[in-house]
């Protein structure tokens, strides 16, 4: 009961954000078309590489197809450069002081805000892409998951990956308290992290040394994990390791974020905003 009441303000935030996101109908339609085209073009390129040398291809065509379609369908859920301009503005012009007045936990508000924006965007966009991807001919379409267990784990790790991505974004917001110019941090996050989390080229394609390093970072626990669990590319001990690592990074990033936030807010209050 208390838990329900305590959560209500956050749910309310979620709802408002979600509705705002739903307003943009044409944008959503256009987004679906764009993402479909990008997925198709990507896939065609992978096909050409496969044709050039099948033995050098680290996944099956079915697996890369699933990966590419999921990547497009859930783009707005996982993309790291999708940051909330309002939050940056609030930090820079001191509007954050108003948010501090409310009897709510700022870290949690921002967290929920981000979850909601991403969820709203993805709700509108993912289904059409997934449906079309399902009816595409083999091996370019979306196949069924390798097993019911894999599907279940896919859903669980998706959710965890979303939490991880938002926890990571929170760090970007919070560093803005210190640098006051959000651009620098943002830029590194938007360019290199995309590469590291496998949004440009899936992690299995990377050269071995680089791949082993990336697999230990939080980036490998984002979209890489669920997408590859679905198609059976990650299974067995590798899967268990992956989930353990994912949980570890979620805990670590949230802890780090909260500590940094507390420190940053103390500074803001001392400086008088």
């Amino acid at each position, binding site marked *: 009961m208390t838990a329900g009441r305590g959560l209500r303000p956050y749910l309310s935030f979620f*709802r408002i954000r979600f*509705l705002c996101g*739903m*307003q943009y*109908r044409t944008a*959503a339609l256009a987004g679906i078309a764009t993402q479909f085209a990008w997925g198709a073009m990507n896939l065609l390129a992978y096909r050409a590489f496969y044709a050039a040398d099948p033995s050098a291809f680290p996944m099956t065509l079915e697996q890369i197809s699933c990966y590419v379609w999921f990547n497009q369908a859930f783009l707005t859920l996982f993309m790291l450069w999708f940051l909330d301009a309002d939050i940056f503005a609030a930090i820079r012009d001191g509007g954050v002081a108003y948010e501090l007045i409310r009897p709510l936990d700022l870290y949690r508000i921002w967290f929920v805000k981000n979850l909601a924006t991403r969820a709203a965007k993805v709700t*509108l966009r993912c289904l059409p892409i997934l449906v079309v991807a399902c009816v595409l001919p083999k091996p370019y379409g979306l196949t069924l998951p390798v097993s019911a267990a894999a599907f279940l784990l896919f859903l669980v790790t998706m959710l965890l990956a979303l939490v991880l991505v938002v926890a990571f974004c929170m760090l970007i917001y919070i560093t803005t308290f210190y640098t006051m110019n959000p651009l620098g941090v943002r830029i590194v996050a938007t360019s290199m992290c995309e590469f590291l989390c496998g949004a440009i080229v899936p992690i299995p394609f990377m050269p071995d040394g680089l791949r082993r390093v990336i697999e230990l970072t939080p980036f490998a626990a984002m979209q890489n994990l669920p997408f590859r669990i679905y198609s059976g590319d990650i299974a067995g001990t590798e899967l268990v390791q992956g989930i353990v690592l994912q949980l570890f990074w979620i805990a670590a990033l949230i802890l780090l974020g909260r500590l940094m936030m507390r420190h940053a807010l103390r500074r803001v209050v001392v400086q008088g905003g």
Partner: protein
Amino acid sequence: MIELNRICKTFRVAQRSAGMREAAKALFRRTYSEIHALQDVSFCIGDGEMVGYIGPNGAGKSSTIKVMSGILTPDSGSCVIDGCVPWRDRQAHAANIGVVFGQRSQLWWDVPVIDSFELIRDIYRVDEGLYRQSLDELTELLDLSSILRTPTRQLSLGQRMRCEIAASLIHRPRILFLDEPTIGLDAVSKLAVRDFIRRINRERGTTVILTTHDMQDIEALTERIILIGRGRILLDGTLDALKARHSTLRQITVAFTAGTPSPADRPLPAGFSLISASEDRVTVAIDTEIVSVSDAIEGLTRGVDVRDLSVAGQSTDELVVSLYEEFRI
């Protein structure tokens, strides 16, 4: 010469309603409603006139300005300004008009004002000699010399508005549209802006069309006002005529030395009604249809040791409120 004849314009707007289910529904079908922004709008403004164009929000003021400046093509009706049809000869027409949108800036935010002016000079192809002359004139009239080298973002609102107006006049337009030019300004800046507008109108003979919610602007600047409501012209006439028509009541307040005879000691004749009386101050309302203001003053002050006296009519603000009420807009 500006002539508008039976201008009509209808917009279609999508309707949105609240709630989760409605949002989902709107994804697939939207309902539209028609808004008649302008209906049979006709008026005629002569060269060198200064006209106040008033009406509540959404009445059609900015649509009319848009039609007259060539941004909007009406559904029907004609508009001829100095021989040009604004939306057909837009670029030629643009050289003859200046537009100040009170809420939007045409100055570049991060560079000194003078850079924006020079850009505008090049946009309007003003030759150097004329530009110098215009600039000197505007600098002097609007007192810009100290702020020309300051970036726009560091200007106060009043300073910025003065620069905005100057920017719209560099090319010496024959017609000036002012859309809420004094919005948000402090009293000193308002006076400066009004004074300047009056001078430009008198000295250059620029035709000025002014939309505003500030009735003091209207009172200070314009002889003639046009009232629009729900897309229709409701009234077109001089401010005085309107006032006369709408109000025959005046309030006269007499302050006098306490302890001496009061104007309220005598019974008040017809046409007078007592509003308030204290030991040194009496306020009386008179109906000017029954008694003239001068007779009333004479009657009230006879044998009274007057220290101060004031006559107040209905303020323009009250006038407009009563107009809006009359036309239910």
